[in-house]
Every structure is written in C-alpha cells, then in structure tokens.
C-alpha cells in the first residue's frame, strides 16, 4: 500500500507527458479527460491511502532509486509518507482535482488548452514530489518544479508582454529565495553528511546545541527559501503581479498550494528551527509584519484578484507567525483551511471576472447577488471563513488557534498576537468591502452567460469544506476535538501547550468580536455611508497613505531603484564587454605601430637606396671609430 505514495506523483506526470507530447492530437475533450483524470485518480489514491494510513499510522518510506552517489553524497529519489505529507497530499490532490475540473469549463476554447493542462498536471506532480520527498534535494527538485510551472502559468497568455514580465518577476524573486535554500543545502550536507530529511534532523539535534552558529545559519538560509516561495517580507512583491495568470492558476498555485510550500518546508525542518531560537523569532516577526502590511495593501486595492493576492500574503503571514511561536500543527491547520476558503474565493472571483467581460475593478461591479446567486453564496462563505466569523467557519478555528498559541508564547508572543488581532480586524474589513461592493448595490456591469456543472461542483464542494473543514480541531471550550494535532503529533513531538480553557475562551471571544467589528466597519463604510470613505480620502495625507498601501508599501519602487535599475543599467552599459575593450586596445596599438612603420615604406626605390647608403656609412663609421 505504501508504494502507492510513490505512484501518486507519477500519475499527473504521465498526464503531463501525454499532453506535452500529443496534446494537439487529443482534441479538447481528450485533453480535459487526461488533464482532470490524472489528478482525479491521484486524488482517489490519496483518499484510499488516507483510509489505510488512519488504520495504521506508521510512516512509510519508498525509495525509487539513488539519484547519484559521489563520495558519500547519495541523495535518493525517495518518498516518505507521514501525517504531515499526507495532509499536504490531500490538500494538493483534492483541491487540485476540483480546480482542474473547474478549469475544464473555465478555460474551454482557449488556444493553449493542452498547454494549460500540461502545465497544471506538471505542477501537481512537482508539488506532490515536494511534499512527499524524503530527501531534501528531491524536495528542492519539486520546489523548483513548482516554481517553473508557476512561471509557465503566470505567463500563460504569452502574447501580452506584461504577463511575461510578471512571470519572470515571480521566477526571479522566488529564485533569490531558492538560492538561499540551495546554499543552506550545501551547508547542511557539508556539515551533516546527508540530505535525507529525517537523518538530517536527527544529526542536527545530535551535533548542534541550541543556538549553534551553524544551526542558525542553516535555518536562516532555509527561511530565505521559504519566504521567497511563500511571498513573505521582503520577497513578497511577486505575488500580486502573479495574478496575471488565469484565475484557476491563481487559485491552485498562488493561493492553495505552492505559496504554502514555505510553510511546509519550515514545518518539515522544524527541528532545525528549534535549534535556532533567533531565527524562529525572526520567523514570527516576519509573519506578523507581513500579515499587517499585506492586509493594509489588500484594503486599498481595487482589482478583485489583487485583493485576494494580498489577502493570501497576509494569511500566509499568519501561518509564518504560528511557525515563529513553534505552533507547527496550527500553521498546518491554517494552511489547510486557507487552501479551502482561498481557493473558493479565487474560483468565485474567476467566474465574476469572466462573466463581466474580464472586468477586474470591483467598483465597476455590483449587484451580483441576484444575478449570480451561487457565486455570491460561495464568495460569501469564503469571505466569512477568511474573516474568521465565529463558530460556523473553518477559518475561525484555525486562526483562533494560532492567536491563542501566540498569546501563550510569552511577551514576544503577545506582541505577535497584537499584530494578529489587528490583522483580524483588517481582514474582516477588506474582504467584506469586496463582498459589499461586488455583490450588493446597483448593477454596474451586467453579467452574461451562465455556470456549467464543472464550475458549480467545485464551488459547492469547496464551500462545504470552507465551512466544516475546521471541525477537525476545535478549542477546549467548544467541543475540544484535537484531532489534527493528535494526528500530527508524531511529526511534531513536544509537550502539549498549557491548557487554560477560560483564557482561551476569552481570547476567542475577543478575536471573534474584533473580526465582527471589521465586518461591521466594512458594512458602515461601503453599504451605509459610502460617502464616508471618499471624505476621508479627500485629506491629502490619507490619500498619500492609500497610494502607499495600494502600491504594496513601495517595495517594488524601492527594489526597482535599488537593485533592478542599477543592475540593468550596468549590464546594458557594459554589454559590449569592457574586457574586450582591453584586447581591442591591444589590436589598435598594433595597428598604430604598423601604420607608423609602414610610412617608411614609400615604395620609392631611390629613397630606399639613400637609406641603404646612409646605413652603410653609419655602420662603417661605427665600426671604424669604435
């Protein structure tokens, strides 16, 4: 049964190969069948595997072959299935198949239909390799593979150079993080002599005391990889631009799965981060800062997809914050619920945008509640879950757990908690701003067309998951089901957090009130008194602030001035190769000397004779006189 774990990534890979090699010959229907089917079978296998794993929860390792063996460096093409990777596999395949199904209708008629499904299948395969890899180098393979697919799919509509620019930006910025990851790999292998993740963590704990410089360096380098992939400060700038890709791509890659790979990496190597408390604190600080900054940015966007993109950055900030306080399981919990509700939001947004003739500006939408009721309810459920509306939504349980764990993690944790609470308020505000503007009020652009079953089914299934997905882990004061934490306990060993049901309940109620306050604020500002926002923005300082937020706090501007432009200018200025100028100078010198000497060659015989005579006389004179 365990060998199935190795087969799960193979199926989408086969789908990719079929579509890549014979895509044009399959026909639209065949492409959809192969594209959706390969992921569908993988999802089925993943569910079967889950049932089997729940019966006997023992990690399984499958080795396909040894990648290479050079002087003790022997990474394997091997897979390891444990509780953590199983949850990731489920998220990837189940949400993956839903989004593939949605795509079959959403992307119908596109000239790159086969290319689209080939890239999507390759992505799922690479993502599965990433989460199942038993070896850090194989994980890196999946890591780069998903980056590649992200590049291909952001730039899917390649005719527009802007899409190409966004795609390259995504690849290059994440590659900066990946390079840190790669250097971390070099360091880890050089000092610990293995790249097998389990062995690596064991040896790190055995050889390095807490706070050892090498452990700190290694953890910091891995963190660099994680923040690049997960779009955290200061490498977050690529994600909003990545919305140039088709919306299902944004849902699958840039919301549900790939961007959470950083969370997975840190959770997977948590033992290393435990050895480096300084880095772990940095992780928490990065998460807190990112979640607040991105929330402000989400508040000031007018493009529906960019609102969701900044929201994704912000929500991943919560997960990173959880990792920073050592709440590994809560990070994975939020990863899971976030995958449900954010995929749902994106898919709903995709329908809205497509029905409104590629309109992205929320202020040109409106009144869609009656026109697109299914989409409205789906988006509302997703928004509620994102805003963590209490008790009925999945997002509430996961976010609440993170906030509670932060609160109980000492003074530093309290500071992170405060940031999280601020984020909760902002989340309710920005997402319900979108809900109220897009779905209520007057109809500004009339939608056309209807929704087929391939789009409706994923919306319904994800809506259900976004509502009930949180019940796998509920707080003590509300049922007390620690199913997920228990399930993950073998991966994240450690003492259970101190129980304080009263305090936890109080904190939850407070957080819920804050979230509701955010929603209420949105209601007031965008339903009751729309003029209020305009009044505030009339103040120049407020307007300047809004612009700064809308531009993502100016990070793009800063990097552009600080790095991109100087580097491009230097490269362009020196593109004729300055070193060649040295050789050209040598050549020029030779030519000059040649010209000078050749001037003596007048071609006049008498002139030569005169010189011969003069030379002879001189020679004789020297020999006689000397």
């Amino acid at each position: 049964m365990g060998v199935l774990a190795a087969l799960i990534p193979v199926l989408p890979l086969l789908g990719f190969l079929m579509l890549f090699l014979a895509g044009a010959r399959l026909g639209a229907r065949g492409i959809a069948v192969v594209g959706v089917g390969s992921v569908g079978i993988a999802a089925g296998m993943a569910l079967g595997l889950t049932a089997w794993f729940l019966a006997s929860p023992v990690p399984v390792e499958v080795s396909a072959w040894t990648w290479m063996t050079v002087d003790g460096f022997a990474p394997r093409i091997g897979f390891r299935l444990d509780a953590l990777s199983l949850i990731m596999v489920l998220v990837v395949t189940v949400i993956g198949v839903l989004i593939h199904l949605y795509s079959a209708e959403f992307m119908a008629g596109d000239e790159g239909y086969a290319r689209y499904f080939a890239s999507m299948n390759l992505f799922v395969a690479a993502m599965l390799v990433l989460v199942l890899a038993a070896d850090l180098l194989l994980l890196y393979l999946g890591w780069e593979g998903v980056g590649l697919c992200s590049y291909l799919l952001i730039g899917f509509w390649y005719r527009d150079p802007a899409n190409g620019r966004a795609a390259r930006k995504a690849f290059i910025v994440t590659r900066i993080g990946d390079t840190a990851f790669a250097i971390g790999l070099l360091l880890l292998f050089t000092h610990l002599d293995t790249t097998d993740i389990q062995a690596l963590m064991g040896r790190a704990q055995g050889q390095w005391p807490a706070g050892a410089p090498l452990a700190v360096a290694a953890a910091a380098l891995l963190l660099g990889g994680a923040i690049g992939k997960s779009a955290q400060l200061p490498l977050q700038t690529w994600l909003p631009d990545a919305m140039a890709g088709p919306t299902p791509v944004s849902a699958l890659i840039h919301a549900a799965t790939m961007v959470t790979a950083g969370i997975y990496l840190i959770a997977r190597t948590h033992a290393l981060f435990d050895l480096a408390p300084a880095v772990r604190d940095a992780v928490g600080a990065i998460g807190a800062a990112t979640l607040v900054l991105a929330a402000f940015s989400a508040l000031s966007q007018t493009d529906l997809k960019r609102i969701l993109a900044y929201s994704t950055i912000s929500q991943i900030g919560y997960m990173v914050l959880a990792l920073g306080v050592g709440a590994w399981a809560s990070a994975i919990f939020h990863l899971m619920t976030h995958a449900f509700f954010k995929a749902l939001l994106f898919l709903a947004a995709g329908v809205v945008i497509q029905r409104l003739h590629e309109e992205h500006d929320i202020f040109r939408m409106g009144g869609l509640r009656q026109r697109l009721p299914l989409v409205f309810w789906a988006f509302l459920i997703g928004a509620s879950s994102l805003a963590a509306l209490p008790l009925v939504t999945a997002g509430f349980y996961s976010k609440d757990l993170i906030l509670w764990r932060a609160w109980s993690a000492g003074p530093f944790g309290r500071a992170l908690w405060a940031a999280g609470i601020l984020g909760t308020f902002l989340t309710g505000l920005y997402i319900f701003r979108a809900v109220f503007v897009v779905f209520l009020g007057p109809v500004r652009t009339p939608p056309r067309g209807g929704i087929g079953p391939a789009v409706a089914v994923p919306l319904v299934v994800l809506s259900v998951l976004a509502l009930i997905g949180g019940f796998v882990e509920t707080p003590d004061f509300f049922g007390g089901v620690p199913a997920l934490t228990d399930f993950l306990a073998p991966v994240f060993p450690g003492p259970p957090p101190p129980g304080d049901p009263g305090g936890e309940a109080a904190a939850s109620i407070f957080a819920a009130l804050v979230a509701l306050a955010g929603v209420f604020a949105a209601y007031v500002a965008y339903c009751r008194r729309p003029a209020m926002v305009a009044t505030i923005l009339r103040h120049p300082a407020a307007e300047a602030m809004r612009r700064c937020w809308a531009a993502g706090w100016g990070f793009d501007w800063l990097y552009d001035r600080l790095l991109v432009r100087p580097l491009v200018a230097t490269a362009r200025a020196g593109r004729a190769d300055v070193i060649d100028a040295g050789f050209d100078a040598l050549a020029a010198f030779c030519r000059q000397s040649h010209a000078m000497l050749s001037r003596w060659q007048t071609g006049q015989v008498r002139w030569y004779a005169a010189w011969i005579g003069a030379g002879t006389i001189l020679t004789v004179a020297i020999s006689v006189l000397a």
Partner: protein
Amino acid sequence: MTAVPPEAAVLLACLLFTLGLAGVLARRNLVFILMALEIMLNAAGLVFVAAGARWGQADGQVLFIVVLTLAAAEVAVGLALVLRIHRQAATLDADAASRLRG
C-alpha cells in the same frame, strides 16, 4: 710600367662608387638608375682587382669575374623589369612605380 699605387685605385673606386650612388639617388629614370648601379658594381670590381694586384693573389680577379657575371645577370633581370614597368605604367619614372608603398 710603373705600378699604380693601390691607394689611388681605391680612391678612384670610391669616387666611382659615390658617383654611382649619386646617380641612383638623383636620377628618376630607371634606365639611368640601372646604369648608375653598373658604375657602383664596377667600383666594387675595381677594388677587388686592385686588392688582388696589391697582394699578388688571384682571388681578386676571380671575384671580379663573379661580379661581372652578376652584373650581367642583374642587368638582364633589371632591364626585363624596366620593360614591364614601361609597358604597364607608360613611364620610366622610378617614383611612379611605388606600388609597394606600405
């Protein structure tokens, strides 16, 4: 018959050589340059003969014969070249035939 002192012969040779050189340098007509060259060669031959007489050795005369042969060969080649140049450039001006200029 009084022997000509070798100094006088060498002096005459020097004179002839200088005359020849001056002719090569001063004349522009290729035929005259060739003639001047002949004078220079003969000056050298005169030195050989005089030196042979001075030391009573045959080497000088042998070498003079070599020089004579050489001069004949040189004139043959030279005149042929002059003819070619005349056909091509329609002039015998040495300065006009400066295609070897660097």
